[in-house]
């Protein structure tokens, strides 16, 4: 009688096929162990029934591991995760960025004067450069708060960028103002690309620099945690 091949390491297989399941480390381990246990039970049942290909039939239980991973993640995820991991930290970063701007404005405008309020040109306001230099702090705060709330690297980065999202929102208000309330000749002094660079792209870069050291850490380690021993022992 031919000897049957040893049972596959179902835990390792599930861990590999599920890939980067974005869950807390302990939760991820549990899910993998549970799926491995299910596969193991199925395999043993097929072996006991004399199946010619128990491994193949067991593997056929899951047609699409990526879809399974997504479904599991969705079913496990707390709906409050987004506000806790992105929105609130991002809002805090934005508040800090605005506070830095106010401080910079308060300290420097008396010295260098006030530029026209809505003309975001290269002749940027006096408080712009110090604000930009301080902006990594706001980015770091957003990323740090998100990491504390177990945010993933992408979520931390998004939270850090909130101060840069403010300008496009303000732009909508600006467009309304320019369209309806500002004399048309004033439009000639406005340069969209300069505005984009000065108030969106450079702030985004500054926030990213602040967030950079905080993008690695707990969540990434969790994703790379190797599964422990096989469940099918």
């Amino acid at each position, binding site marked *: 009688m031919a000897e049957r091949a040893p049972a596959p390491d179902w835990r390792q297989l599930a861990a590999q096929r599920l890939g980067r399941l974005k869950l807390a480390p302990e939760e991820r381990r549990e899910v993998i162990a*549970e799926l491995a246990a*299910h596969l193991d*039970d199925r395999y043993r049942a097929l072996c006991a029934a004399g199946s010619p290909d128990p491994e193949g039939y067991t593997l056929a239980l899951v*047609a699409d591991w990526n*879809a399974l991973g997504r*479904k599991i993640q969705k*079913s496990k995820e707390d709906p409050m995760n987004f506000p806790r991991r992105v929105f609130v930290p991002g809002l805090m970063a934005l508040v800090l960025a605005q506070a830095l701007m106010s401080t910079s404005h308060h300290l420097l405008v008396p010295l260098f004067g006030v530029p026209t309020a809505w003309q975001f040109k290269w002749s940027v306001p006096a408080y712009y450069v110090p604000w930009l230099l301080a902006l990594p702090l706001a980015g770091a705060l957003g990323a740090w708060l998100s990491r504390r709330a177990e945010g993933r690297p992408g979520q931390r980065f998004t939270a850090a960028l909130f101060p840069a999202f403010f300008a496009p929102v303000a732009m909508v208000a600006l467009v309304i103002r320019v369209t309806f309330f500002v004399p048309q000749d004033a439009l000639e002094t406005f340069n969209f690309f300069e505005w984009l660079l000065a108030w969106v792209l450079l702030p985004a870069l500054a926030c990213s620099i602040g967030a950079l050291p905080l993008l690695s850490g707990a969540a990434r380690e969790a994703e790379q945690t190797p599964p422990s021993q096989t*469940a099918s022992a």
Partner: protein
Amino acid sequence: MITTRIKKGSAELAILALLAEESLHGYEIARRIEEQTGGVLRFTLASLYPLLYRMEKRGWVRGAWQTLPSGRERRRYELTARGRKQVAPMRKEWNLFFGALHKLAGVSRG
């Protein structure tokens, strides 16, 4: 052939009804459902666990790891008090549903 939507709607009741009898682990839940419904209701691994995790998040079931006599570890699910409260209203709802279908289209529960 029962459509996927109806199956999906009945899946929670099937699990709750099974767990109301005794606590079971995932594989056993799938096996019992298939066996007791003559294969009409069948859970794949991909449909069972996301559903169990959702039910656990709602507080209807609770999973706990247990070591079997064979030494293998399995996560066993049991109904919580909240889950137990769901069973009767869901049964009633499905009875109403099939009763309505029976009146309308002669669908029999037998």
